[in-house]
C-alpha cells in the first residue's frame, strides 16, 4: 500500500485537473494504491497557497502529515524539494500537459513517469496569484494530449 500526493487545481479529486505548482497548488489529492488498485481518495486544501514565503515547506508538511510516500509534481521549488527529500518522499515528474489526477495516476501505474530528485524552478516561481492555467480547453474528454497550454510555460521542463 502506498499513498500518492498529487497537487490539484480545484477542490481536488480524481477528475480534477493536476496543478503544475507544488507549494501553491489550490489542493492536494491523496490517492491510496494497493497493488495498483485505487483503494481510497482524499482531498486536502492547501492552506499554504497564499503564504508569503515558505509555501513549499508548508505544503510538504501537508504531504507528510497525510502519510504520502510518493508525490507527482510539475514545477518544484528548492525549499519544497529540500523538504520532500528530507522526508524521503519519492518524486515523479508530471508531464507538461493538462490532464486529470486520474490520468496522471494511470501514467504512474504504467511506469511512464520520470523520477526526479531536485527542484526544477527557483524560489517563488509559483507566486503571482491566480495566473495558473490559461488558454482554452478545447479538446474534450478522452485520454492523451489535452489542448491549451498553460500561460506560465508549463511546457518548460
Amino acid at each position: 500500500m502506498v499513498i500518492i500526493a498529487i497537487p490539484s487545481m480545484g477542490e481536488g479529486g480524481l477528475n480534477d485537473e493536476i496543478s503544475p505548482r507544488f507549494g501553491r497548488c489550490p489542493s492536494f489529492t491523496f490517492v491510496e494504491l494497493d497493488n495498483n488498485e485505487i483503494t481510497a481518495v482524499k482531498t486536502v486544501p492547501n492552506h499554504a497557497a497564499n503564504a508569503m514565503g515558505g509555501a513549499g515547506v508548508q505544503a510538504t508538511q501537508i504531504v507528510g502529515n497525510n502519510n504520502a510516500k510518493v508525490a507527482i509534481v510539475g514545477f518544484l521549488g528548492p525549499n519544497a524539494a529540500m523538504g520532500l527529500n528530507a522526508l524521503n518522499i519519492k518524486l515523479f515528474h508530471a508531464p507538461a500537459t493538462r490532464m486529470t489526477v486520474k490520468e496522471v495516476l494511470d501514467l504512474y501505474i504504467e511506469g511512464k513517469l520520470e523520477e526526479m530528485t531536485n527542484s526544477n524552478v527557483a524560489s517563488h516561481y509559483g507566486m503571482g496569484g491566480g495566473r495558473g492555467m490559461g488558454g482554452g480547453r478545447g479538446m474534450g474528454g478522452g485520454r492523451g494530449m489535452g489542448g491549451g497550454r498553460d500561460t506560465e510555460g508549463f511546457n518548460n521542463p
Partner: protein
Amino acid sequence: MSNRRPKIICVTGGKGGTGKTLCAVNIAIMFKNEGYKVLLIDGDVENPNTYLLLNGRLENKQEVPFFKPKIVEEKCSKCGICAQNCMPNALLHIKGAFPIPMLTLCSGWRLCYKICPENAIEANSKTIGWTYSTEIKGLSLILGELKPSEARSAAVVEALLKNLENVVEYDSEKFDIIILDTAPGAHCDVELLIDTADVAIPITEPTKFGKLDLIRIMELITLLGKDCRVIVNRSSLLGFRDQFLKELKEENIIILGDIPLDSDIVNSYCQGTPIMDNNSGFNKEGEGYQAFISIFGNLKQWLNINNKIKVKKLNG
C-alpha cells in the same frame, strides 16, 4: 556630549555603477587631506571592493555568525510548536517526527529557540560572511562580505554597524568623519546604512535609469527623515548634462555638484589611486579634480564644517 559624535555621511545612489564607491573614497580622502580622522565603511557586502580603489588589502578577517537552530532529539517532544510559530516556515514538522530545520529560510529571529517548551532547540551558529578592517592611505576601512550563496546580507551589514556602534560609543573621538558606502538599490541593507547616517549623498548619472533610481532612493531617504544632496557623475555623458540638471531642479533636488567624464578619474580608478590623494600626481587643474574640490566645498558648507580647528574647539 552630542557634539563629540562623528559626522556620519552615507554615500548611496539606487542605480549600480554610478560611482558611489568612487565618490565615497574620494570624499573620505579629501577629509583626510584636511587632517580629519576618517573611517570608511563599505556596506556593499555582495560586492565589497572599496579596498581595490585604494589599492589596499583585506586584513583582520572576522566571521559573521548567524543563528542556526539545532534540534536536541533527546529533549524534543515532537509537539511542533516551533514549526507552527516560525514565520518564514523554516521548520518542517510532520506529526510524530522531529522538526527539520530548513536553514535557507531561517531569518535568525530565534523564536523557536525561545519558545520551545522543552528547551530542545540549541542556538548553534553558521558563518554567513566576514568583516575586515584595515588602514589604507591614512584612512580606516571596515568592510563586510556576504558568503556567496547566503541570502541574509542585512545580517552582515548589521555586523558592520555593530562595529560602528562600538566605535561611536566607546571611542567617540577616534574619528571625526564616518563615510558609509552602500550597495545599489533601495533594500534593507541600504536602508540600515542610511538610517545610521546623519545625511545621505545619492550619486546618479544623467540617464533615465539614473533618474528613476535616484527618485526611488530619495523616497527611501525621505521616509527615513534624512537630509540629502545629490552628486551627478559622468555629467558630460552624451551632452545631457544641462537638461538633466534642469530636471533635477524641477523636482526640487539639490545637488552638491557634478563630475564630468574625465580621463584622470578613469586612470585613478583603474590604478587604485584615488584622484584626490595628495600623492596621486594627477593634474590639479583637471576637470575631474576641480569637480571634486567644488563638491567638497559645498559638502562642508552644507554640513557646517568650516575647518578642522573649529571642530576641535566645539569638541573641547
